[in-house]
């Protein structure tokens, strides 16, 4: 049992994560393009972040003392948008504008367009550096807020990311927590076939990071890891979250072909039904 989160809260977050997934599917069907598998896989973590971990104020997104959540792999932004809408940053209805002309919900997120997004991202490997820069600046001014950086696993193939990892380790940025979505898939196939990342834990340790590994769909484990990171004062911490791409929808799970395409309307209806009745675990509120 966790010291940091009650079972009831975990259950509440799991139910919320399901709702966030439903919004995600609706969002993608409406947009007719975008990524499906990665965002579904990170639904539990983004729900935990926005509804339990982050010290933030959706009505005051520029609050200087807020925790910063940097999303490095910008292409999974639909899950961030869905979690933000549920958290109250903007109306749920606005999710339907994803990727459409004039929208604040750009295909890849833009800081200047949507308050609360923190950074513009898409090109991989650059989020950790920005997160480390914010963490460094905050420490210069003795600020207490924390900086989180969500990354994909495959973007660890980019050199820039390791330059940033070296910088954060060298500067002992203990106010920085990395979160790696270790779902093992990328556009061209399985990460270990395309360009192997393992041993990822040992790599981070060699760069002077504290490393934790969790089941990315176990909210309790994730919250415990976040709390442990806060207690590490000499190093930045990275949480390698083992996730299942497409989690929540059996047809999508583990299938890298779902990396970069949205569900068609009829698929969307089917997926929504599956989510609403998930193994009888959650009672449908909509049907």
């Amino acid at each position, binding site marked *: 049992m966790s010291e940091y989160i009650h079972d009831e809260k975990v259950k509440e977050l799991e139910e919320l994560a399901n709702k966030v997934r439903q919004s995600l599917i609706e969002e993608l069907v409406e947009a007719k393009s975008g990524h499906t598998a990665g965002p579904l896989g990170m639904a539990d973590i983004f729900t935990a972040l926005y509804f339990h971990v982050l010290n933030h104020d959706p009505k005051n997104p520029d609050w200087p003392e807020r925790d910063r959540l940097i999303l490095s792999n910008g292409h999974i932004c639909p899950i961030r948008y869905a979690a933000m809408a549920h958290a109250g940053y903007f109306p749920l209805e606005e999710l339907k504008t994803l990727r459409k002309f004039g929208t604040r919900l750009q295909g890849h997120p833009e800081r200047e367009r949507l308050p609360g997004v923190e950074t513009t991202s898409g090109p991989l490997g650059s989020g950790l550096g920005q997160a480390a*820069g914010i*963490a460094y600046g*905050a420490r210069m001014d003795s600020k207490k807020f924390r900086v989180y950086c969500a990354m994909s696993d495959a973007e660890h193939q980019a050199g820039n990311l390791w330059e940033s990892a*070296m910088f954060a380790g060298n500067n002992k940025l203990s106010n920085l927590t990395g979160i790696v979505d270790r779902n093992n898939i990328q556009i061209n196939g399985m990460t270990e076939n395309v360009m192997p990342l393992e041993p990822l834990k040992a790599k981070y340790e060699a760069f002077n990071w504290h490393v934790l590994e969790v089941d990315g769909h176990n909210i309790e484990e994730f919250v415990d890891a976040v709390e442990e990171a806060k207690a590490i004062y000499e190093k930045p911490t990275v949480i390698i979250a083992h996730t299942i791409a497409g989690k929540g929808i059996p047809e999508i799970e583990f299938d890298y072909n779902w990396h970069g395409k949205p569900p068609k309307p009829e698929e969307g209806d089917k997926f929504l039904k599956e989510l609403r009745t998930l193994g009888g675990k959650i009672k449908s509120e909509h049907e």
Partner: protein
Amino acid sequence: MNKEAYLIEDLSKAEKAPTRDGYGKGLVDLGEKNDRVVVLCADLAESTRSHWFKEKFPNRYIELGVAEQNMATIAAGLANYGKIPFISSYAVFSPGRNNEQIRTTISLNNLPVKIAGAHAGISVGPDGATHQALEDIALMRVQPNMMVIVPCDAIETQKATIAAVNCCSGPVYIRFGRESMLLYNALLAAEELSKEGIEATVINSHTVKPLDITTILNSVKETKAVVTVEEHQTSGGLGSAVSEALSQHFPAPQEFIGVHDRFGESGEPEELIEAFGMGIKDIKNAVKRAIKRKV
């Protein structure tokens, strides 16, 4: 500081001061007045003179090692938080190597990161083509939100460094050569031409973006011909910027002094400037060609 131009009557008595000294001085001036200013450097502290800032403000100096891509993203993060970072390196590396990081994390975010590209141009000399940035103005000038300043000498580099913070709330690229010679060459060429009965106006077009179109147009309307002079590829730099402006507002014959679609090579700065057609004689000839083409 004195905003008046530092002009001397006798050009032959001009002293050459390294432009990077101006950058180092400008940083220290800023450091004293603005505690948001931080300086980042990728293993070239002495060479870019950012070590002068480091000596005075060690807590606001950040060492990156040989990692220009990271330097851009760390600076974006610092600016995102509220600092005003200067990133210092050679122009071939920054904004060369880290161009995409600058585009996505600095320009698109419209953050106040100030990029100092030292050792630009062919006059880097013996280091050769790998270290002679001849395309950096083109790279920076096409990025929305980015201001591009190319100071002509040490004093102007100091002014540009200070202006990058005080006159611009967004990203700025400050480009400086190791030895800035071309404005000087242009002034000497104009002096010699005057003796031959040709009066030329020399405009120190220190800011390539936004370009001072008014000044250029007022001059070209009088002379009806123009020569642009720069240590850069003739495509994409000042010459292109001037040409774009003139073609829209006042088409006039233009000759381009610069590097014509080739890489540099090792040599002493003076001999390279001659070999690549940017000497005093070359400028004079270009002026005469431009005049001949007048309608």
